[in-house]
């Protein structure tokens, strides 16, 4: 009797603790959503002036904000494609062959993963300034590709451990060329890992603040637009766009991953 009570108490404590952590994680989200309905029109948009849907409509008149979102997506798509191609080739090549300087490439790949982003940001800034690569979409794509490549490589490499070479060999024995084997055998086998790496690259790109901050020129991504609006008080339409992004993402997760809500396997 005492024991079940004790166990119940323990369980209750556990649930309560988790609830508190979730509160900690979600509270700012609640603030963002609330402020997206705030009727205030005066900076710094802090005081509550009543409920309105207006910002969700005004949002679509704010071309600078929409452009920044478009830039974010464009840069993410370009850098993801680049990083995935380079990363996939590299992961397979480095797994399959032994060659001089492999350790150096490995070390270079670890750098963007462990180094504080600000260091990479200023390093790329100095490079772009020195080489006169124009700051804008191009420099952002180059920068984002750079920090994404390692994540693609590591993702695929994790899958390659225990990879069976015999299928490839069989393919070659049957007369398929190296290139053909790569595209028809290797890539399909690795597809889930390649996809996972690409998604990670995409996510890193759309959320990046620090490296973009140093390499953007006049081009604004959505995170940089947020950074700028923080200076004078984040206006409710920025909150509204954030809310829409979050709502859409969550909805999509619910639709595509409905197994989350079922019993786990």
């Amino acid at each position, binding site marked *: 009797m005492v024991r079940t009570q004790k166990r119940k108490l323990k369980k209750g404590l556990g649930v309560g603790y988790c609830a508190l952590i979730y509160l900690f994680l979600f509270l700012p989200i609640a603030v963002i959503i609330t402020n997206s309905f705030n009727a205030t029109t005066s900076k710094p948009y802090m005081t509550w002036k009543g409920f309105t849907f207006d910002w969700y409509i005004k949002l679509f008149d704010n071309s600078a904000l929409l452009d920044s979102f478009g830039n974010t997506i464009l840069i993410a798509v370009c850098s993801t494609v680049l990083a995935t191609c380079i990363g996939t080739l590299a992961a397979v090549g480095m797994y399959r062959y032994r060659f001089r300087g492999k350790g150096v490439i490995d070390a270079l790949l670890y750098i963007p993963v462990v180094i504080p982003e600000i260091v990479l940001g*200023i390093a790329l800034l100095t490079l772009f300034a020195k080489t006169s690569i124009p700051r804008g979409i191009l420099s952002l794509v180059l920068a984002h590709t750079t920090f994404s490549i390692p994540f693609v490589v590591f993702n695929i490499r994790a899958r390659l451990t225990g990879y069976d070479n015999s299928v490839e060999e069989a393919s070659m024995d049957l007369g398929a060329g190296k290139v053909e084997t790569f595209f028809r055998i290797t890539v399909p086998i690795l597809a889930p890992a390649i996809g996972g790496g690409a998604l990670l690259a995409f996510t890193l790109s759309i959320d990046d603040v620090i490296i973009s901050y140093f390499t953007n020129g006049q081009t604004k991504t959505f995170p940089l637009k947020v950074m700028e609006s923080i200076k004078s008080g984040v206006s409710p339409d920025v909150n509204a766009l954030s809310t829409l992004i979050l709502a859409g993402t969550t909805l999509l997760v619910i639709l595509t991953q409905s197994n989350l809500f079922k019993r786990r396997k």
Partner: protein
Amino acid sequence: MVMKTKKGAAISIATMVSPVTLWMAFFIAIPLLYVAVMSFCGTDENYNVVFRLTLENYRRLLDPSYLQIYMQSILIAFLTTAFCILLGYPFAFLIARTKSRKKALLYMLVIIPFWTNSLIRIYGWRTFLSASGMLNTLLMKLNLIDTQIDFLYNIGTTVFGMVYCLFPFMILPLYTAIEKLDINLLEASSDLGARGASTFFHIILPLTASGIFSGSIMVFIPALGYFFVADILGGGNSDVIGNLIERQFQSGNNWPLGAALSMILIGITLLLVKLYQKCGGDMESLGV
């Protein structure tokens, strides 16, 4: 025949590995070397970088006021890591070992907030904690306080914001490590008469240490550089090394000094990574 294969392999290696080699050389190795060289340069009266070998930047870095900011930054990163472990470990344990059918959902709920831009979430905290913000208003309404409490703009709020930003980087490796725990081991331990605390310190903790190590690396190092958290929640009163670097590359207009500061950050990172590897940490687990 042998020659041909070797040649063929060489071509394959070249096509597969040269893109990444060139890319990483041009966008990682060269810029970082350039930063290293720049840290020994000076500036002219128009703030342009001029190449002359000088230790002046490093001499300035030894100035007591800089040293104090490094210490402050390391303290902030340390506190952030400690809080992430203390708050995160029980939480990760509970969600990783739950028998609830909603386990995947619980895990998912840790990630969802991070799909919203981190700056705007940090700003959300600022709105919430401000003197006339929701928390103060609520506490006043409940008659728990009579005067507004000052939450914002100190070292405490900076640490708070860092913990908030970096929390999932601690949770995810912890979750993975804890989920891997073999339930039989725990049962065996308790069958052998070990008590809860003893099982924890002798079995669970050593087996999940890898998660703590990689989580700590992934929290501690970024915390040294997250200048925007110190700006937004710290009010400029609790700068980290990242703020110093940012200032020299922006308003300070002294790139060589900023480069030297970056070298300090690179040094700390290398030191910690070496330490991590010494402890048996796996580099790959930092990447995913």
